[in-house]
């Protein structure tokens, strides 16, 4: 138990104080390198975040010391692996403040979580004339699963609009919550604009009409404390790799009563209690939804990521990132010809922008030459691009280890882009 506890101890020493960004940066081995001869400035955290040594070590230790399958082995290694994997589930439960680990389904990521709810919960409950309501700012993974259900059932998909600042038009959302609305899917934080939705209020509006709500939290969990019971949502989806955990692992929170009622999403091992050729008795929650040998190493790594976030403190992370967002918004807006896309009052983690006469792809290449990694393109949110009339944007997205100096480096690199095209 070396790395996790060491790192925990280090951060606890500064409890109450602001986040010590130098200490945090020393936890992330990948940050200490040069790219194109320049110190790496990693500002593509909304695509995927870097991993602290505690996560890398947890994954390596599983493979090096106790790799084995979980849940059915009676030998020592299997028991250790089961304990670590189920321990990660408990950590996720506490992280989200869910009532029980029966409500935490471990999956490949937020995308699989949304698909599970679409197919297992919504699909059997809708038909022609029924409606599913989403918003205009959704990531494709909170659009396409609902289009599949629409095409399978003949129900329709309604889209609540956003305004010029990239905020949801709540009156329109409320108006679209009609007598035939059967389900609502909303993003907690927009990956393309950074907008933070007032999820608690939107859930209240939906629940007043007895409509269940799924929240896509992939972009929220790295940036703020999330309490699913306080939000009141019925389902909450997250991806491990965006919260400093491994790729290929994530989770779905679902209210137990709803999960209990849902048929399995996939069939296979681990999700059954008993199988004959006549019938199968499904396993209890949450295993009913976890067919096949899971991503054990990923789950254990995600547990380590939750520990890491807890040791730094989500409140401290949120405060650090909010200060950084405020600084970056001002610094970037000062770059000649730069326009920020998405100017909501409440934003987290993401600043999307375009520059006069310079295509985002050219910007991406030019700032890379300065060691700066940003994302350019449509960010898997093509309807958002259409809404703002741009083919693509450049996007700087922040994590707990980013600094004001890195924002300055980005701003200087963007100014250099103007020189290249002058």
């Amino acid at each position, binding site marked *: 138990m070396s790395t996790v506890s060491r790192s925990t101890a280090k951060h606890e020493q500064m409890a109450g104080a602001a986040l010590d960004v130098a200490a945090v940066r020393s936890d992330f081995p990948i940050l200490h390198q040069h790219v*194109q001869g320049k110190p790496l400035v990693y500002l593509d955290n909304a695509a995927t975040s870097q991993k602290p040594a505690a996560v890398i070590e947890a994954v390596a230790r599983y493979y090096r010391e106790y790799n084995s399958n979980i849940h059915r082995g009676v030998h020592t290694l299997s028991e250790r692996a089961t304990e670590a994997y189920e321990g990660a589930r408990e950590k996720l439960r506490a992280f989200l403040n869910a009532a029980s680990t029966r409500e935490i389904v471990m999956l490949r990521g937020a995308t699989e979580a949304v698909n599970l709810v679409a197919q297992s919960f919504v699909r059997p409950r809708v038909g022609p004339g029924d409606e599913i309501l989403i918003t205009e700012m959704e990531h494709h993974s909170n659009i396409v699963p609902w289009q599949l259900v629409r095409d399978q059932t003949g129900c329709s998909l309604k889209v609540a609009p956003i305004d010029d600042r990239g905020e949801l038009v709540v009156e329109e959302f409320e108006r679209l919550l009609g007598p035939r609305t059967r389900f609502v899917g909303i993003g907690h934080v927009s990956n393309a604009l950074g907008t933070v939705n007032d999820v608690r209020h939107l859930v209240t509006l939906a629940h007043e009409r007895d409509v269940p709500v799924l929240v896509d939290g992939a972009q929220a969990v790295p940036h703020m404390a999330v309490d699913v019971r306080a939000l009141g949502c019925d389902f909450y989806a997250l991806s491990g790799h965006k919260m400093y955990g491994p790729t290929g692992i994530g989770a779905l929170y679902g209210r137990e009563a709803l999960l209990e009622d849902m048929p399995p999403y996939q069939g296979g091992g681990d999700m059954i209690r008993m199988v004959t050729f006549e019938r199968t008795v499904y396993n209890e929650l949450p295993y009913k939804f976890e067919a096949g040998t899971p991503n054990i190493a990923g789950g254990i790594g995600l547990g380590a990521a939750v520990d890491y976030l807890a040791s730094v403190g989500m409140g401290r992370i949120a405060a650090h990132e909010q200060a950084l967002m405020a600084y970056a918004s001002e610094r970037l807006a000062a770059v000649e010809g730069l326009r920020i896309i998405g100017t909501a009052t409440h934003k987290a983690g993401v600043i999307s922008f375009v520059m006069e006469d310079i*295509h985002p792809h050219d910007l991406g290449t030019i700032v890379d030459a300065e060691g700066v990694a940003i994302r350019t393109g449509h960010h898997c949110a093509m309807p958002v691009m259409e809404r703002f009339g741009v083919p693509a944007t450049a996007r700087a997205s922040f994590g707990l280890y980013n600094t004001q100096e890195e924002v300055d480096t980005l701003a200087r690199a963007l100014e250099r882009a103007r020189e290249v095209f002058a």
Partner: protein
Amino acid sequence: MDLKSLYQDIIVDHNRSPRNFRRIEGATRRIDGYNPLCGDRITLYVKLSGDVIEDVSFEGSGCAISTASASLMTETLKGRRVEEAEQLFQSMHDLLTREDSGVDPDSLGKLAALEGVRDYPSRVKCATLCWHTLHSALQGDDQPVTTE
């Protein structure tokens, strides 16, 4: 890598003032090309007189590399025979995608300015989109071309 090898003066110039950036009324072929990865779009117009490219032009939006590449392509193609254009397509494709293509950049005139793109794998499709679109147009296709 030196950015100047990618964004040479001629590329910056053709991006700022693209040549043949217009529609051709009564074009023999009109075809759309699309790079879904970055959203680059091009509409290519070709007017043939027998097997000679009498006029060629484009419209659309994209990054500097894709705009300059299309501009340079149209400038080079005017008055060429279809067979020559197809040879150029092959040469450009090889030059941009293969280290050991054996294509002599000097034989390509201004088009050689795009050679630096080869060092930026994520940008190669920006430069080749217009050429793939041309290839389809000359084949007589009328389906939109995508780079994916």
